[in-house]
């Protein structure tokens, strides 16, 4: 008990003293996840809105694929991208392995199906009269999508936040593709794994607490948005 409470006290000390190394890792982690969330959202949200509003051949297959990808282990994404980005891989010449960009790509791929699925749900669960009303008022396809996105903005924002929350807690792909390089690709989750294995439990705990705090803030924002939406 003494070990755990001493470590917890030391972890709090690191947090309130604004330990430079700890916050460097937090900034790296948040910025990587934020960029990944933005990239994924810019593709997944329009794709989700399009899919929800249109009927086309293969829609069911895409839906099944998205559901499957949502459950895909992150380490598999890490493995596949490692094969692509490693020096001998087809994209090896881009020198992306062990860079933040590689982690961003992996996290964006990881959260894309989650965001797209949630965007589909956001549009399909909107009032059934929304689209016919907008069509009758003269909305053309692009204006129609913009208006639908505007009307379902809270649910769509919730999809983006959920994606961000998933990205920041990701460890498998970040470890394999980032290499856990200090000050460069070391994220909160990879740092926790490393520090704990090195026996520096208080540093891992401090990062764990900050990760929990971020998760709490993300969830708080989500529930606030859901309240606003309903």
């Amino acid at each position, binding site marked *: 008990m003494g070990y755990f409470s001493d470590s917890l006290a030391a972890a709090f000390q690191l947090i309130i003293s604004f330990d430079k190394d700890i916050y460097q890792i937090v900034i790296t982690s948040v910025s990587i996840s934020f960029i990944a969330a933005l990239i994924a959202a810019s593709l997944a949200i329009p794709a989700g809105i399009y899919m929800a509003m249109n009927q086309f051949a293969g829609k069911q297959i895409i839906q099944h694929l998205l559901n499957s990808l949502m459950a895909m282990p992150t380490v598999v994404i890490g493995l596949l991208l490692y094969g692509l980005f490693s020096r001998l891989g087809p994209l090896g010449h881009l020198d992306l392995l062990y860079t933040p960009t590689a982690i961003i790509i992996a996290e964006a791929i990881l959260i894309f199906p989650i965001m797209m699925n949630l965007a589909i749900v956001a549009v399909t669960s909107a009032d059934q009269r929304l689209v016919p009303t907008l*069509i*009758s008022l003269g909305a053309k396809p692009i204006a129609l999508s913009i208006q639908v996105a505007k009307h379902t903005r809270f649910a769509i924002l919730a999809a983006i936040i959920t994606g961000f929350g998933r990205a920041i807690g990701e460890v498998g792909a970040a470890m394999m593709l980032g290499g856990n390089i200090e000050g460069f690709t070391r994220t909160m989750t990879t740092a926790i794994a490393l520090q704990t294995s090195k026996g520096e439990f208080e540093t891992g705990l401090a990062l764990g607490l900050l990760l929990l705090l971020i998760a709490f803030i993300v969830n708080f924002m989500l529930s606030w948005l859901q309240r606003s939406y309903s």
Partner: protein
Amino acid sequence: MNSSYQLRNIKVHHGQQCVLDIPELSLPKNKCIALLGNNGAGKSTLLDLLAFITKPDQGQISLQGQTAQFPLSRKQRQMIGYVSQHPFLLTGSVADNIALALHLQGINRKQHQKRLKQALELVNLSHLAQQSARTLSGGELKRAAIARAVAYQPDILLLDEPFSHLDQSHSQQLEDIIQQFSSQAGMTVIFSTHDRLKGRALADSTINLVSGKTTKSPLLNLFHGTLHDHVFDTGHLQIHTTSQLKTARHIAIDPSEIIISTEELHSSMQNHFMGRMTLIAEESGTIRLTIDCGERFHAIISPKSLSDLNLTIGGTIWLSFKSTAVSVF
């Protein structure tokens, strides 16, 4: 080009069921037209087609003399104002909703204020321009939706069940709005209602829908059943017809063709039924009777006949009509 719409070989299916089947229909221009029919008759489906919100599974629709394709051109879309049975207003104020319609229709921004003012004045809703659409009552919401639909000055106004869920005062207001709009030069109003008497009172002409098919019958005294050997069985009554059809599912009897008497008439008329008077009402100078003979019949008589026959609610009376008075379809 005297028709606002020309429909040819229209078919709409919901799953396996054909919910609309219109071989040919022409809706005149500059008229107020009522689509009459019971719930599920296909009125909303037809209005959705006329508003070009849904496509028919088969057939062609011409709008103001031009074949219309999905999606409509901006010019064609501007011709149509549509208000659904349960109108949906987007987040924001009444004015925001109207401004959005003007924006989507590509109306010059300089004209927005003027059009907004005109539309709100037409529906007597100027005082609620800045009110949130979420806080409107049912009647206000319908009027706001009409203002939004007429703001871009369409040639055709489509209203789906505009009087449903409205109290008498709101219903009266809406009648005035429809009459005001349809009296404007070049305007066509097409509205659906299950209230046949109101539809006939308000409209220049009516279109009757039964199970997705148009009929010329007045749809009063409409009964469903089966036809066998010129006799239509409603399940409660056998009604003689002159129909040559082998199968039919509906009949309608013009209420003015029904003869009322206090004793059974001995005449060449083939249909005689005894019933109980359930309603006597005055309507536009005539007397409307409702008689329960196992099926509920509506008959129209003059005020003089009412006093001559000395009819009372609950009293036993006879009604008779010729087999030629029965429309079978």
